[in-house]
């Protein structure tokens, strides 16, 4: 079976982000960009499944500007077999991405689609779920453990939920989104980087996939959260009570 893994190019997790002066978004010029950490985990899981013999091909997909090729190269250097780059300079929101991934799934017919549970730039946590709905496939999100049963064509997934862990059986083909504790992604080793140079990355456009990209959502403004006010030293218990009553209104 094939596994499709969606990987997103985002501002590196460790970078201190700043909002653009025109408030249209976060500053991305001259800022280190990397693969979304949850996407890395998704790709790692797909590779492990392939190495265990359950899949024969891992395909990495990225949607975005030309620099996404770098992200795909990282994916190939980790061990993906080939890449698909859907090139666009527009910012696509989760629903549009989900529609694109659905089109790709219709073409490639994977047995599993892996995504990170959310991207660290928008924290939407929507794409995986929307892809599953569009395809009519079962979904297991926030996976912290994935076990495949080839004979029964079922995946047993432990999900991290608020109350603890929930275990689901999902029939394949299915969509799985990955959470932090699922695995520790491998590093891109030099021999693999060398092999990656000869792996193909197919370029596609949104038109090729016949996807309607009209979005119902428009981003009006991006601003920083209000700065934390500094604390105040009070000189007596009475003053504290007065402030709690009259300023903070909690007593």
């Amino acid at each position, binding site marked *: 079976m094939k596994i499709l893994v969606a990987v997103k190019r985002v501002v590196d997790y*460790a970078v201190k982000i700043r909002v653009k002066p025109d408030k249209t978004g976060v500053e991305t010029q*001259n800022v280190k*960009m990397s693969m979304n950490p949850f996407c890395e985990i998704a790709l790692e899981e797909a590779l492990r499944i392939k190495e265990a013999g359950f899949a024969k091909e891992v395909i990495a997909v990225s949607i975005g500007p030309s620099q996404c090729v770098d992200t795909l190269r990282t994916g190939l*250097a980790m061990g993906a077999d080939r890449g698909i780059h859907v090139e666009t300079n527009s910012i696509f929101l989760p629903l549009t991405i989900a529609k694109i991934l659905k089109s790709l799934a219709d073409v490639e017919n994977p047995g599993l689609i892996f995504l990170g549970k959310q991207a660290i730039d928008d924290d939407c946590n929507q794409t995986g779920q929307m892809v599953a709905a569009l395809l009519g496939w079962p979904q297991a999100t926030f996976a912290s453990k994935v076990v495949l049963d080839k004979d029964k064509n079922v995946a047993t997934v432990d999900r991290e939920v608020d109350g603890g862990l929930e275990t689901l059986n999902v029939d394949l083909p299915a969509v799985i989104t990955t959470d932090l504790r699922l695995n520790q992604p491998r*590093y891109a*080793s*030099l021999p693999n980087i060398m092999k990656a140079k000869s792996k193909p990355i197919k370029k596609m456009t949104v038109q090729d996939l016949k996807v309607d990209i009209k979005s119902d959502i428009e981003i009006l403004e991006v601003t920083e959260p209000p700065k934390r006010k500094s604390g105040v030293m009070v000189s007596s218990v009475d003053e504290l009570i007065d402030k709690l009553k009259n300023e903070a209104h909690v007593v």
Partner: protein
Amino acid sequence: MMMQKLRRSGEFIRFGCKSLISSRPNKDSVSRSVSGFVNHYKSKGKLFELSDGNYKTELHHPCISRNVGMLLQQYKCFGSSAASLIQRNPLFSSLDSKDVSYFKEILGEKNVVEDKERLETANTDWMHKYKGSSKLMLLPKNTQEVSQILEYCDSRRLAVVPQGGNTGLVGGSVPVFDEVIVNVGLMNKILSFDEVSGVLVCEAGCILENLATFLDTKGFIMPLDLGAKGSCHIGGNVSTNAGGLRLIRYGSLHGTVLGLEAVTANGNVLDMLGTLRKDNTGYDLKHLFIGSEGSLGIVTKVSILTQPKLSSVNLAFIACKDYLSCQKLLVEAKRNLGEILSAFEFLDNNSMDLVLNHLDGVRNPVSSSENFYILIETTGSDETNDREKLEAFLLKSLEKGLVSDGVIAQDINQASSFWRIREGITEALQKAGAVYKYDLSLPVEEIYNIVNDLRGRLGDLANVMGYGHLGDGNLHLNISAAEYNDKLLGLIEPYVYEWTSKHRGSISAEHGLGVMKANEIFYSKSPETVALMASIKKLLDPKGILNPYKVLPHSLFSN
């Protein structure tokens, strides 16, 4: 090269471990054997020889418990070579209540510290190797207060230890006896930053990491970076001419410090706080203070040239079969990565094992164990270009057989985990037990020969580790053993110093001399040079109150 051996008959004076029970909780300290050392207080206490040949001393000192016997100490504490011995200079006055009142008057009560616990920490160095017995720590808030303190101490002939982050590794930042500690930690303001020229002016007590964080918001970086960045002060960095991981790219502090303000022993404030890149007016005195380890003056402000933060940083972790490959790789890296090379560090297999065993959450980035590991960092302005350059260089090195395996960090998190390994060696050594630490500059071809020679010499007695700034020809030679013992020390010193001297290396590449190597300077500098240093010291600090017993040989100042 003359090598003066200082040996005075009969007296063995080394650093004392005063408390039987350390008031600082140290979960990792196993009862380490201490060849007990007692400070010989000629003027203060009486020394009694016990029947079993040990020494007991009665001292009237709040930090010391009585009957300091050799057998009961739990502090890790030992002197350098058996021949080194230091006596408290009897010409120094002792602190009295009038002094303390005066300091309280000029600094305020809060900033005059007599509290036992705080003094315990301030008296002990980071490695828990050196411990003084100061009864007073002063926390000046500005240059004026530093000047007042020193003027007074000079007039009273009270010895002083300038202290910053107390992360030094040669015992230069803590008292030897009862010197007054002057800690500049409260002087931590950033005074100005010019976003065009990149010149940062700040007070000496600014923590390096805080400066880096501040600069990050402006799109700049400090020209130096070291493992102690979370605690070390820029004043201390300048006073010790700290090297660090970026020296290969940005050069030493002698080049990047544009000016400084220092207070000399008599309280005189020297304003050399220029912010100009070029200023050839007279003798450039700031260079005297850079690297003099607080012995010529207390640095109170620093003006430093910072670098624009370049967006494209790449880090590779490489495995090499032998040291010759590491050397060749360095040559190739300088040639092929040239202007974007920003760090070239190495560590051997023993160092890697140590880190993997003693630190949490680290794993070997390379899948199989190898003899040597190299970290290569590039910093440039074009992500794609730099990445391609690095990959091409490494793949070619792989083909040529210089490299046996390697990985390239894909994001900042992975890069941090690679650095954690190299920067964590010092911490791992602390956890592993006793460590004898040497910091040598040697010709690159010779660097690993000393490690191998020492390994052969010590055999099973200890674990020898070699790592360091290969790009700068700087080896950090560390010998790890379960406990300190004199026999081991005797095998290491003066062997290491003589070996280094034979190859015209430096016995202290970046750590400085402190108290650990104050008497070993002749292994790397000629007697005439050292004599001139002593003259300069006597000129700037006639009473010798600034950081006594350190940096220069004691014999030059014996009364």
